């Protein structure tokens, strides 16, 4: 039993090593600050650890962690108490400076959820629309439409900000 436990821990440590950067980047991009990003990352990996989830291969593992990270961040963002904490304390923290400095990233993450998710998955993580469709439980044509609409909206917002 102790041996199995050790193997499980070792496997988990390897999985963490492979994916912490990916998960942290997603969490940081959605949560916009270091502290919440760390919280979300921990929750995602706790789900893997406690849920004893088995992955078919590394692609499956990566896709699962990506969706779990996005969903965990959304859950955190919905928590009513968080809004106040962010507004009052975290908005000015040092870790957000890098985020605020990058205008494009900021604009992408300010898009409505349905566009933000697909743009992130497609343009950053390089998933195809069919893959995104299966990850987010949407149809491929919906994903393609959302990508097109998201791009259009992003373009308008970037142009508006240039004019200002």
């Amino acid at each position, binding site marked *: 039993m102790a041996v199995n436990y050790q193997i499980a821990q070792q496997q988990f440590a390897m999985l963490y090593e492979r994916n*912490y*950067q990916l998960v*942290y980047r997603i969490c940081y*991009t959605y949560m916009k600050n270091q502290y919440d990003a*760390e919280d979300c990352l921990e929750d995602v*990996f706790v789900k893997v650890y406690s849920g004893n989830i088995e992955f078919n291969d590394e692609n499956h593992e990566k896709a699962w962690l990506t969706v779990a990270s996005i969903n965990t961040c959304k859950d955190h963002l919905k928590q009513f108490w968080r809004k106040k904490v962010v507004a009052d304390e975290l908005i000015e923290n040092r870790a957000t400076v*890098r985020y605020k400095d990058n205008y494009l*990233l900021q604009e992408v993450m300010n898009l409505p959820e349905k566009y933000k998710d697909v743009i992130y998955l497609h343009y*950053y993580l390089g998933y195809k629309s069919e893959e995104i469709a299966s990850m987010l439980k949407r149809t491929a044509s919906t994903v393609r439409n959302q990508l097109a609409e998201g*791009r259009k909206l992003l373009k308008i917002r970037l142009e508006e900000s240039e004019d200002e």
Partner: protein
Amino acid sequence: MSDLKEFRDAIDSIEVTAEQKKRMYSNIITKAEKPRRFSFPSLALKLAPVLSVCLIAVVAVTLILPNAFRGKEASDNIYNNNPTSYEGGHAGKNAESDKTVETLVIDGIECRLEIYDITDRDINDGSFAPNSVVSTSAEELTISWAEGDKLYVLSSQQAADEDSLWQLKDTVMQQLREE
């Protein structure tokens, strides 16, 4: 997307320090191995169905059921002369045995006359109020009055209104006196 590289670079620039990585890993292990505690919102969600059923039961017990029993009690009291209730009945009489019941048809209207003996005890203990009372229900009109040492209760399902029942009362009393 011409700024794609910029977008990717921005995300790539988000790095995890070695110290951060270690700390997060140790937090994950601690959280995962700690016995799961219920947070208030999740506990509330889990208990919501049970709480709703309890709430409904409490409302039913406190509001609906007592009224239902009270209604039954009131209707029972009309016929059982229970002195605890004056609603719709006549002034409290205790003994069922000293009651006389007659069914009469006066001017084509069928009515029921109940006659009770009023004892000194009834008067002294305050369970008998000598004033005439009227009860109206959807099905039956009832009036009662006292005369001498008797209490009279006249009920009819056919009387049009209270006044017509009071008129019947005069006829009834006249007949009784003649007898």
